[in-house]
């Protein structure tokens, strides 16, 4: 079993996030592994943990990211959780990629991994990146690779070359199946990511991160990055701060005060 987990380096949601020149400010001081990718890494590691020992020995989980060198933070964290290998795709030509450029770069990374080391059975992602929150890259990676996509899985099962997932959509509870190779995205309810142990934390410090350029992947520079993007950011501005909160301490009249506030402001 060979699994690629696509991970993203994002600003910590607990930090003050901002834009610089219409792009997300990736200040290395607050950059981190996208928290939802931990669910993807956990899903991958559990699939391998369930294999018989000889099969586990012949398997690998590769963390793949498209990012500048700062993205190594996300890959180090992936090593800490237990991935075998980490690859970063870095190229100035990829800056400013839209959803399609990002998906093309990730798909090209998967194809390169296949050319080097044999078929990749599964590509796993988190349900969203916490900076952009688009949730569409997994489906687009699948489209680029011509593989089925089972997304937003709450429950994951891999057996006999078939991936089965259960998921909750806005409309329905569904069970879906698809043959491997496939693309999977897991919901944040799918599992509880493991805490890195001391041994892995120490080992992660010195593990080698491989770096590839757009050319290494055979990516057409005109099709990715700002050059290939079909949308263009034209402005980004912080919202004005909210007015001071009107605070009432309940001494028996708190509910009445709340009702009066809503009536006074014509909110009900």
């Amino acid at each position, binding site marked *: 079993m060979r699994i690629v987990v696509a991970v993203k380096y994002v600003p910590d*949601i607990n930090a003050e*996030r*901002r*834009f610089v020149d219409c792009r997300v400010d990736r200040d290395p001081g607050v950059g981190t592994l996208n928290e*939802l990718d931990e669910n993807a890494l956990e899903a991958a590691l559990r699939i391998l943990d369930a294999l018989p020992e000889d099969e586990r020995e012949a398997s690998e989980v590769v963390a793949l990211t498209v990012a500048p060198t700062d993205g190594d933070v996300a890959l180090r964290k992936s090593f800490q959780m237990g991935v075998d290998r980490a690859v970063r795709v870095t190229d100035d030509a990829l800056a400013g990629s839209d959803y399609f450029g990002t998906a093309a770069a990730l798909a090209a990374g998967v194809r390169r991994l296949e050319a080097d080391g044999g078929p990749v059975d599964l590509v796993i992602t988190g349900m*969203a990146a916490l900076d952009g*929150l*688009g*949730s*569409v890259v997994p*489906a687009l990676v699948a*489209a680029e690779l*011509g*593989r*089925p*996509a*089972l*997304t937003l899985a709450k429950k994951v099962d891999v057996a006999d070359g078939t991936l*089965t997932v259960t998921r909750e*959509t*806005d*409309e*329905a*509870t*569904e*069970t*879906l199946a*698809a*043959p491997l190779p*496939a693309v999977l995205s897991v919901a*944040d*309810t799918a599992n509880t990511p493991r805490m890195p142990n001391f041994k892995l934390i120490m080992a992660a410090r010195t593990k080698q991160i491989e770096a590839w350029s757009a050319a290494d992947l055979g990516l057409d520079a005109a099709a990715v990055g700002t050059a290939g*993007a*079909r*949308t*263009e*950011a*034209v*402005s980004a*501005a*912080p*919202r004005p701060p*909210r*007015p001071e*909160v*009107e*605070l*009432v*301490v*309940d001494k028996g009249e*708190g*509910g*009445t*005060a709340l*009702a*009066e*506030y*809503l009536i006074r402001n014509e*909110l*009900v």
Partner: protein
Amino acid sequence: MPTTEPTRNRTVLVLLDPATEVRSSTLELLTLGRALGRVEAVTLEAPTVEVLAQLGAYGVETVHQAEIPTDALAAAGGDGARHLPSVVAATLAAAVRRTDADVVLAPATFGAKEAAALAAHELGAGLVIDAAAVEEDEVGRVVAGKRVFAGAWDTRCVVTADVAVLTVRSNAVVPEAAAASVATEVDPLPVALAGTAGVVVTSREVKERAPGRPTLEEAAVVVAGGRGTGGDFGPVEEFADAVGAAVGASRDAVFEGWFDRYIGQTGVTVAPRLYVGAGISGAPHHRGGMQAAQVIVAVNSDPEAPIFEICDFAVVGDLADVLPQAAAALRAHREGAGA
């Protein structure tokens, strides 16, 4: 914005899936669409008579109803496969090609986002996910406004491709019927479905919608309960009924098994006129799903709760006391007003 006349003769397609009811989010898309051009609808199944009448009132003359090869559908698990993002995407792409449409508008559900992305991929279109506003710039390009980073920033982006595909958040605009209602025709749309790349729907259980309450995504007023409820959503529900609100929860409350749907950046994202959080501390995850609300009210017994930092009005107190008292006062007010 909805009342301005479009400057270009665009065709705008609005995704209507399912086609058994017209939700407020669809009415909002139709209203937005009319400001950009002539609006047509795309469905995966036959719309009901009531649906057609509502579409007519919003100015839709044509509904493109997908005709999907039955063998392709059967191979993907039958009727439930009709709503798979790959099938919806193939339908949207076919509709764009047939009508030479310029804009596709879809709601901001996870399924519609994927379908929109796959259709845009196939068409080489520009894609915007979760727009909070859609308009045209001075040279007639489609511009989308987004509220990001948990409602802390506003961004705008322009679509530079010929076709623009956008998913739009609920409550982006107030629905407004067309000046004159029109007759609505259903036009069969042949969809050459190459397949679903091997995806098979093995079971699909459609969720019941709570009668008498708006859905969380679409509600103008949302009341949410968190850890502070201690598992008793009674006061939350009573208050919600008094203000006609949808009910949601924090992720913690859902993990505890107290409620089924949570508001948050990975759950349901809401942008109502009024949000009331009860017993919710306001963790970043939750704020990411509600901070775009116009007015934020919180009730929490902890005076240090972070949610108070982003509130317009707050009560420090026990929600089990505060909410029933407020609900009673609001009911009395409504009766006094004769409504």
